[in-house]
């Protein structure tokens, strides 16, 4: 089956259930937003899709490759941007992207073309031979995004990929994602910036305490919340039961 499939996936860390019986499908060509408060299980879900964290129960399938039983094959199909860009900071982007490209078995010619075009687009070409320890968070994020796109993945797992990026780069990444979905790439995307999710995602899943609270298109979510015409922020706050923010601010006596 094409796309990203999770079936009845559960993951616990000790007595804490991080993800409970989660079933999720991201179709090819779809940007699927994964939203939820801190600690709701979004990052754990993404790590399980990547084969980084092993679920206790359930099945995960990426474009026909079983993540649990054929992890290396599954990883070849997917690009990942973690919530923080954990790069090898003692390497230069050139060395790091060489490492990534070699791991994905991308031939030298394709690698040169891909790196050149992506770094040019993200305005990182002039930093190609600088050691990354001196980079800002945004610069590191650009390298992480480049690394995730290098091998033309069929699926993208992006954990808050726009963190730290300048507005121009945000726009470019958004455009790249739109183009890739046009080519059939399935994108699982998490963000806390609800305006971005509203503008970009075809479908949205709202998670809380490891389970799905609501799922569907923006229209479907508004209906579920009983708030037609509302913004995603209002819908999100209603569905997650955290709409009483005014009272909290008032109680602060600032």
């Amino acid at each position: 089956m094409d796309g990203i499939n999770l079936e009845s996936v559960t993951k616990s860390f000790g007595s804490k259930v991080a993800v409970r019986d989660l079933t999720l499908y991201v179709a090819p060509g779809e940007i699927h937003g994964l939203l939820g408060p801190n600690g709701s299980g979004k990052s754990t879900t993404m790590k399980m899709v990547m084969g980084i964290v092993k679920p206790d129960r359930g099945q995960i399938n990426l474009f026909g490759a079983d993540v649990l039983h054929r992890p290396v094959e599954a990883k070849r199909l997917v690009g990942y941007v973690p919530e923080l860009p954990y790069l090898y900071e003692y390497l230069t982007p050139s060395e790091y992207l060489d490492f990534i490209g070699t791991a994905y078995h991308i031939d030298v010619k394709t690698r040169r073309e891909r790196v050149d075009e992506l770094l040019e687009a993200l305005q990182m070409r002039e930093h190609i031979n600088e050691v990354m320890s001196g980079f800002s968070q945004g610069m590191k994020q650009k390298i992480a995004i480049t690394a995730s796109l290098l091998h033309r993945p069929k699926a993208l797992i992006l954990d808050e990929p726009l963190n730290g990026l300048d507005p121009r780069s945000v726009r470019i990444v958004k455009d790249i994602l739109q183009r890739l979905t046009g080519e059939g790439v399935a994108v699982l995307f998490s963000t806390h910036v609800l305006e971005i999710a509203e503008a970009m995602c075809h479908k949205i899943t709202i998670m809380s305490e490891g389970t799905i609270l609501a799922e569907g298109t923006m229209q479907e979510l508004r209906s579920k919340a009983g708030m037609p015409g509302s913004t995603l922020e209002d819908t999100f706050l209603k569905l997650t039961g955290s709409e009483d923010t005014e009272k909290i601010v008032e109680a602060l006596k600032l």
Partner: protein
Amino acid sequence: MNLSTVLSLAAVLFKSYFRASRPGYRSPFSNPRVVILVDVVLFTASFGLISYLLPSLPSDLTILLQPVVAQAIVGLPVILTSAVILAGILFELGQTSGLASSEAVNWLPVTPQEYVIGSSVSVCFAYSLFPALAFGLTIPLALRFGMSSVIPFFVLISLLSFLWGAVIVETLRAVMNRISTSVYKRSGRFGVVLRLALLVTLLVAVQIAFNPYILYAVLSSIVSGINLAWFVPMVWPSVVVLSLLLSDNTRAAVFVLLSAVFTFLILESAAWLRVRYWSPMAVTISVSTSTVYTPKERSFLWLDSVSFSLASKELKSLSRRKDMARFLAIPIMLVIVTILPIITSGEDSQTALSGVSLLLLSEASIILPIMLSSVSIGQEGRSITNIYMLPISAEELIKGKLFHAWIISGVAVFGIAVLMQILAPVSPLQFLVTLVAIAFIVVTEGYIGLGAGSRHPDFTIGPRARYVTFTGFIIAFALGLAVTATTLLPLILYFTGFFTILIGGSISILLTIMSTIVVGMALLILARSYCKRGVEKFLSNMEV
């Protein structure tokens, strides 16, 4: 200057300094009160022990001891200063660049003077075991040899020297921060190599400096040379103690005054340097001026392109991260620590060296590959996410992770073997068997180290990071010891004459070679399996 700010800053810095090192994390020893208690216990125990032992010493030994005690009391202030400086520098070298700055203080309402004093006091606290032990050992001796009138001054001036060391560390931090930044920025790849060479040299120098033979020579020279070096501020506290021992109170008073002025000067200098240099600059180090991306793909010996890429990354980690430089200094330190006492002892060094030759080779062939391979997983820190997210198989990871461990250990152990063959030669056949045995040991230990490191990684990146848990370390070394002992068994049986008695002299060396190969191969296969299972299990689930 606000004293409560200084003290609370000192407490915070002490805790972060202590907790930054993994062993102190969540430990009661990160509490200043507990440290004071430990100091008191240490002082009392050492004081009590020396006081108990002194009366039972023979009188001729007591006479010999008197000048040594005087040397110790006079030399202690300088030694305390040096000890804090060395410990402080080593702490700095153990830090990764990400932890090198304390930026938060820069935007708090704290004056540079308050920061420098607070930080220096915290460093004094961190190394307070030094003076506690030193006073516990020297005060009963000073009392025994009639130097009791000097003790209060000796204690106070030694504590001042101790504080000097901490302030100098503070100064060096600021200067090192600027110098390393500038050198790195301007010299690119050459700067990386230069810094690595300097770090390794410094670590080896520290090891030599703390060799007991060298320490004794230094102690003697401090006392004999103190009158010649009176113009060096570092020795002024020692001049004070010496003058008091010689009842030259005027000279003592002058040098107390000079020491007070020097204290003020170094505090002001440290504060000025902090203002001038501390704010960390954004370091952008270019290893090439080109902005063109030139992809590389290589394979080498048994390494395919993925494993080669991993191995290349590991070597860059060793050469570019200052916290990893210590692993390159190990072989040099090992040789020096073993050989230096023998050479400087003045005895028949060739006989003594023959005795330690096999021991040194076994030490090196256990320690080096196990150290390098067992830390290779944990040293990735949070960047281990890259390994998990990439389509890298267990086999590729093993090859890539072990290459540098095998090559560095192999070259180092072979170098030591050749050095020992020059210093204390054995027959060519015996040398050959030794080489075969250590080759097997190096390869097998690499597998064991990675097997243990993948089962028990410690991803904490910080000063004195271990990169492998204590359990992993113990398992790796226990297995490593067993492997080395078993692989060397045929050689030991040969050297002890067992094989000669068993089958006759002419073919006993052949039996030794054959049995070494058989035992070595069997252990290698077992170790490889242990390593592969560990890495496969590790790759199946990230627990960072």
